[in-house]
């Protein structure tokens, strides 16, 4: 075979160009094909939605299954401050939560707690806010987000989203105490056990464990009480006042949904896209 350098270089050059160019050409053609398919599909979908007059800027996925959530009526809580104290106390009693004295406040463990409005709702301006907002505490707890950042951060899957009811649950057995979840949670809803909590638990609930040193804990929406057909401890302590309503956010006939349909509610830091399951009436 006649192997001339000139001929070899020509073939090599052509091969290189083809090799580099081919994937780009394939991508371009396939993309345009996909794009045209998408276009027609989107048109088909939009037509009936527009017909119902529900055209919305961003489509939300249709809810599936049970997603437990809560509405907290801060107006009622402000009218009757004992409700909030009662709810916090009920949670402490139900979950063997330690109560640290003032000098150990940095070790505080909290599942549901009182905090000023501006620290609970950091997205909202309190400039010229009404007196009821400035002078009364709000309440915070784990939001049991639909897209929980803590779950993504956990390296051992000790915290996870329960698919049956949407509760962001914790398996304390698996927690290694790395505190990534605490860094990830935008709501400060997680506490770390810097020391053995038992000496600071005032009363034991015999049906619930304590935690040990080196474990992160947070509100579990009273999963253990729900299993027995009870409402969460905080909700139960406010029973009859309407200050706290609990139920399935995906069930249009549930009590929470009735409150949500009627009242204007806000969520904590909705812009982060975590889709909190706890709503507030201010």
């Amino acid at each position, binding site marked *: 075979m006649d192997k001339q350098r000139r001929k070899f270089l020509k073939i090599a050059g052509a091969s290189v160009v083809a090799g580099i160019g081919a994937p780009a050409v394939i991508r371009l053609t396939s993309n345009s094909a996909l794009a045209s398919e998408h276009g027609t599909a989107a048109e088909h979908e939009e037509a009936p939605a527009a017909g119902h007059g529900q055209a919305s800027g961003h489509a939300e996925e249709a809810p599936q299954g049970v997603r437990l959530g809560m509405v907290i009526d801060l107006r009622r809580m402000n009218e009757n401050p004992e409700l909030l104290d009662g709810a916090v106390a009920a949670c402490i*009693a139900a979950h063997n939560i330690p109560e640290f004295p003032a000098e150990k406040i940095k070790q505080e463990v909290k599942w549901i707690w009182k905090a000023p409005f501006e620290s609970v709702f950091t997205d909202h301006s309190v400039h010229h806010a009404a007196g009821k907002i400035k002078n009364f505490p709000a309440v915070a707890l784990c939001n049991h987000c639909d897209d929980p950042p803590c779950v993504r951060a956990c390296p051992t899957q000790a915290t*996870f989203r329960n698919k049956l009811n949407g509760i962001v649950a914790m*398996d304390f057995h698996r927690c290694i105490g790395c505190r990534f979840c605490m860094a990830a949670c935008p709501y400060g809803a997680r506490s770390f056990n810097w020391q053995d909590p038992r000496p600071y638990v005032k009363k034991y609930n*015999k*049906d*619930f*464990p304590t*935690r*040990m040193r080196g474990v992160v804990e947070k509100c579990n929406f009273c999963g253990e009480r729900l*299993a027995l057909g009870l409402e969460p401890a905080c909700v139960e302590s406010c029973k009859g006042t309407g200050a706290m309503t609990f139920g399935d956010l995906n069930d249009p006939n549930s009590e929470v949904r009735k409150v949500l349909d009627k009242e204007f509610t806000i969520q904590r830091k909705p812009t982060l896209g975590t889709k909190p399951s706890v709503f507030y009436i201010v």
Partner: protein
Amino acid sequence: MYNKGTIIPGLILFVLFVTFPVWFNGFTTAGDLPKPELPPGGEKQCVMPAEYMRANHMQLLNEWRDNVLRDGNREILEIDGKKYSKGLQTACMQCHSRKEKFCDSCHTYAAVKPYCWDCHLTPKETASKEAIH
């Protein structure tokens, strides 16, 4: 045999020394098998037969743990008319109410230190801080 007087006593001493654990346990109480206390309330029925529980209670507890926490399966077990909600504190400790006399007896003997009690409360501990419910 040469040196009979040295070799035979030497062999006897050697055998005695090697079998020391066997005869020492025979003459003392160190080898007594543990006797875990049966439920003080007189319950005869457990969630599984005693032989199974003796060998596999740790697997069963892990299974319950995963059922309850991970799979959200908190169904109440009903065995021979008695109801048990899956859990160390909510089921086991209801009958075996003295962990010190029941769990510890074998665990100490076998020198195992399960970490259940780092978090889970024994009835004795619960009683130490006036129980609610």
